[in-house]
């Protein structure tokens, strides 16, 4: 009998293991008031998905602020000031982590630290190194995704960057190697490497869910940087986020405010799609009379 009861309990426990559920948390942004669960409809690859929960704007939010500032102090300082002003205004349910993109992604402040400490860290951030956005955007988003998947909070990533494509350690500019080669046609369209890197990043980040927002404080219109900034616009949009490029110092505070305000309005819906063997999931979220922006294509990460 002493043995029988544990064996029985073990058997029942194993037999009672519920079938594996696949759940997906999709952050989305809507104009106007909070969208309620009953107003939402979702489908994946055209098949309706069950909605189990919506995190509204009053739910906790973990915001990863990544600073990628390595250049002109006259742009960096207004960006820092604007960011500080916005952080000080954030409501209590928003918890901000501060990270730095130079020489690899690095955590400067964990979420949950006091706002004063955060502000002090932003003020004291040294402006050095190479541009780091392309090298760190995937890691930062995956870190936020880990939080999103394992807890019931909203997450977002905000990059503040002054990066130029010419300032990366890796060379995306396709510089002239042989100056005596006067018939070189390969550099007539020099943006090939930039486009390739951004396509690669977009493919890698297709398996992330957290939206990425970017405030870029150094608008450029040469061919290489135009390709770079257009690629960033495409990349952030594909995550359900957005990018804003500032052409003057005066635009920086407004752009930071707009990004933080949009992040504050983020909601997250938890879906339970039917198991799909498709490599890519085309996600559709709808609410009557509302315009929702969210990640529309998701590639589940392969199990390792």
């Amino acid at each position, binding site marked *: 009998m002493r043995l029988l009861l544990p064996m029985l309990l073990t058997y029942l426990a194993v037999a009672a293991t519920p079938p594996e559920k696949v759940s997906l948390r999709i952050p989305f942004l809507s104009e106007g008031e909070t969208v309620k669960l009953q107003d939402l409809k979702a489908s994946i690859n055209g098949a309706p998905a069950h909605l189990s929960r919506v995190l509204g704007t009053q739910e906790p939010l973990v915001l990863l602020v990544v600073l990628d500032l390595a250049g002109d*102090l006259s742009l960096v300082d207004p960006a820092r000031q604007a960011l500080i002003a916005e952080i000080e205004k954030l409501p209590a349910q928003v918890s901000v982590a501060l990270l730095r993109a130079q020489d*690899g992604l690095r955590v400067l402040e964990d979420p949950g630290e006091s706002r004063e400490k955060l502000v002090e860290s932003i003020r004291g951030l040294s402006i050095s190194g190479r541009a780091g956005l392309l090298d760190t955007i995937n890691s930062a988003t995956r870190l936020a995704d880990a939080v999103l998947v394992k807890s019931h909070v909203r997450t977002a990533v905000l990059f503040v960057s002054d990066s130029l494509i010419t300032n990366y350690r890796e*060379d995306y500019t396709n510089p002239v190697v042989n100056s005596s080669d006067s018939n070189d046609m390969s550099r007539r369209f020099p943006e090939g490497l930039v486009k390739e890197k951004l396509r690669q990043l977009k493919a890698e980040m297709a398996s992330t869910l957290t939206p990425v927002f970017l405030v870029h404080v150094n608008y450029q219109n040469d061919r290489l940087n135009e390709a770079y900034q257009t690629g960033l616009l495409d990349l952030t949009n594909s995550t359900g986020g957005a990018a804003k490029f500032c052409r003057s110092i005066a635009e920086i505070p407004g752009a930071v405010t707009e990004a933080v305000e949009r992040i504050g309005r983020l909601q997250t819906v938890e879906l339970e799609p039917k198991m799909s063997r498709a490599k890519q999931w085309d996600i559709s979220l709808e609410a009557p009379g509302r315009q929702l922006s969210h990640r529309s294509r998701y590639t589940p990460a392969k199990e390792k």
Partner: protein
Amino acid sequence: MRVCRTAAWFVAGLAWAQPAPPVTELDRAIAIFKTESGNLGLRGESGSVVTSAGNDRKQKPRWHGRLFENFRNNSLDAVPHEVVQRGGEQGLLRRNQFGFNLTGPVVIPKLYDGARTTFFTFTFEGVREKIGRSYLRTVPTLGERQGDWSASVDASGNTLPIYDPATTAPNAAFDPNRPVSEENLEYLRSPFPNNRIPAARLDPTAQRVQANYPAPNSDAGPFFRNNLFVFAPEINSANGTIVRLDHTLNDKNRLAFNLTNSNGTDGAAPLIPTEANPGSVIVDRQSRRASLEHVLTASSRNVNTFSVTASTSRFSYRNEGGAGAEPFPFYRISPYLALGRANPSTRSARNTFTINDGFSTRRGKHRLSMNGYMNREQVNIFAPHYPSGLYQFSAGLTSLPGIVNTGHAFASFLLGGADYAERSIVQSPSYFRKPRYQMSVSDQWEILKGLTLSVSVTLDGSGPRTEKYDRQSTVSPEAVNPANGRPGALVVAGRDGQGRAFQPFLWKADPSASLAWNVLGDTKTVARLSYGRSYSTIPVYTSQWGTQAFNGTVSWISTNMQLNPAVTLADGLTSTTRTFPDLRPESANNTIADLVEITGRQPTYQSAGLSIERSMAGQTVLTMGAGHSYGRNLLLSNSGSNPNAIPLGALQFRDELNNESFRRELRPYPQYQRFDVYSAWPEGRYRRDATYVRFEKRSSSGLSLSAYYEFSKQMDNYSGPYGVQDYYNRQNEWSLTSSNNPHRISFNYVYELPFGPNRLLFTAGGWRRHIFEGWSLSGVTTMASGEPLALHPQFNNTGGVLDVLNVNVVPGVDPQVANQGPERWFNPEAFAQPDDFTIGNASRTHPTLRMPGTQNHDLSVNKRFSITTERSIELTAVGLNFVNLANWTAPDTMIGPASAPNVNAGRIIGSRGGRVIQLGLRYSF
């Protein structure tokens, strides 16, 4: 059964549940953040640069890179229009451009792990190329080569008479009070019977030299002009590497090292396949550049950047006759193709050393920057112009003296009589040195929100050129020449009180200011205003100009090029008793003397601009602006300036000017034939006014485009294909810049095509998505209106007073034509050849007549095949002029005399251009 399971869960829950403190979701999230960031290696000093596609765990950084090959073949290209028009076929083209790039952290197993701190990039690129080049030139007809000019005609199609200089005799009936004309000849001279030069009179050396000419093979015309079409291969090769190292010492210190290296050979398609080839020379090139940069971030608001750079660029011309062989002499027989070339055996090395330090700080609303810059440039050069001699021929010797449209330079060549000859004696290389220093201070001040003022001042110190062994000389306009007691004598650096340099060390302040204003507080609209003034330094040219006392030139000058040759080919350039160095003040007399500007005038530029940018919905930006720029003391070449020019008033002496001894006395410095100012005489002036509109659009759907339109007008007093008529009255030369395109449009676009699942078109999934996805287009389209036409008369009978003669305008005749086309681009009757010994009254460039406009459309089509998220293959097809458009060549602008007008004037004889395709393959990992 369900009840049992529920009961079991309940019991198990009771048995195993632990009492837990109340935890909020946010606390859980923070704990997860800390754990995951630790797993990813993002905490503490180390950072992650990993871009993994799988589960996030701390991973070793990986190396990235690419392999590539770009390929061109003549079978891909269209036959160029100029080749089709000459009846030619597609020439051979083989081009391979290949290489690789590897980039990532520096890791040496068991010795060094720079995964987070040291980063390298290594790039190699090689090029192997064989490419056809086409040229259309004029060579003597087969008859002319035998002395038979009976079929030769002038530009109007009339027989061109060739006169026998051996029959020259003074005309007893000449009336010196009347201009020389066919009715009042100063000299009598008989034409060759039947317009044929007897075989016995043909100079043997000329016969030997002219055997290098290929036979005519084209009838592009008119008449016998443009009768040689050359389509020859050019073989080029190059190998280059770039090494970059980036090392982060700590949060405050960073080092970056760059090293580039390239070796190459610039081939040259020969115009003539013998040692007499006048085309480009084969050049072997080497370039190296190394730089080290240190960035110190002293605090969050103070950054200092220090860099040291050294670079060298070397080239040497290959002697086509073989190493050590005597170069072929240079025979200039205009308008025919020359034989031989200038500078046949040049070697040069340009070394540059630069130290730069910049400090930036932020104080309140100010960003202050200070920069110091030191540069030292070395040019080591061995470049004899004409080591085997220059022979220059003109029509004069075979003309009827004083009468234009008679005689021919090639006929004079056949008789062996050159009107000018020169030989360079260069015994050693020159080692030029030049320093430059700059210190700048700038402040960017946010006066108000939305109003930023930037001011800066650069103190620019430009040192003069010196020579390592003081082997420099120039003509000093003040020094008295012992030969004639007049001003202008050679002075030598470092001797007789002369400093090591001829020019002063110049310190100038370059101010600039700009204002950015968000008009009326609207951040979407930015008004920008800017002003700047700058000075440019006089560069060290790749030439041994200014060393005449050490590397001299011996000249032979005809006393009257209509009557006597300077030298005959039979005599050659007899050895001279001159030895170098020759430091005597009169040693440059009777030569084209090098003249270095010594007053310290520097090219000065000023510019001002105003623009308004407005960002609009849909990520679009519209910019409108206007700019004004102005420059003075711009450096001019010998075609733009001549400080020893004869004043135009001397034209009154008419035919007497053909006498060299008479003419030379009219020059400001009669002891010199003229001055060689190279490209360093600060006398140019320009003004440019432009207005423009730019539209930019960026879209998250993968489309970006920009369109730009500019309307501009640029005037100057020096530019053009021929040079300046009046050196003494620059205001008369003020006309449109020869390169000014008033209307310019460019259109750039990049578009990721919306093909594939979840896109607009070709939405099929499965294996078909590999076909449809990953296509993109990039394109550049440019259109420009034509440059102003520079019309010039066929003959310049001004006794050598004018280097360049403008045409005359015929009053009341419209230069424009109704139906403009290649047969009649402009009306040549609106212009006339000026009378002998008078200047032309038309401007240097025409104010309304322009060359045909040009347009070009380049396109790149890319297809990306994704292998994994980080590995891909990309195929690229680049098409230059992909619509295979032909652009008209320039019309014939030569205006002949009324008696023999150029029948081709105003006509366009062809077009150029053709589609060029390159295919590329790149594997990225």
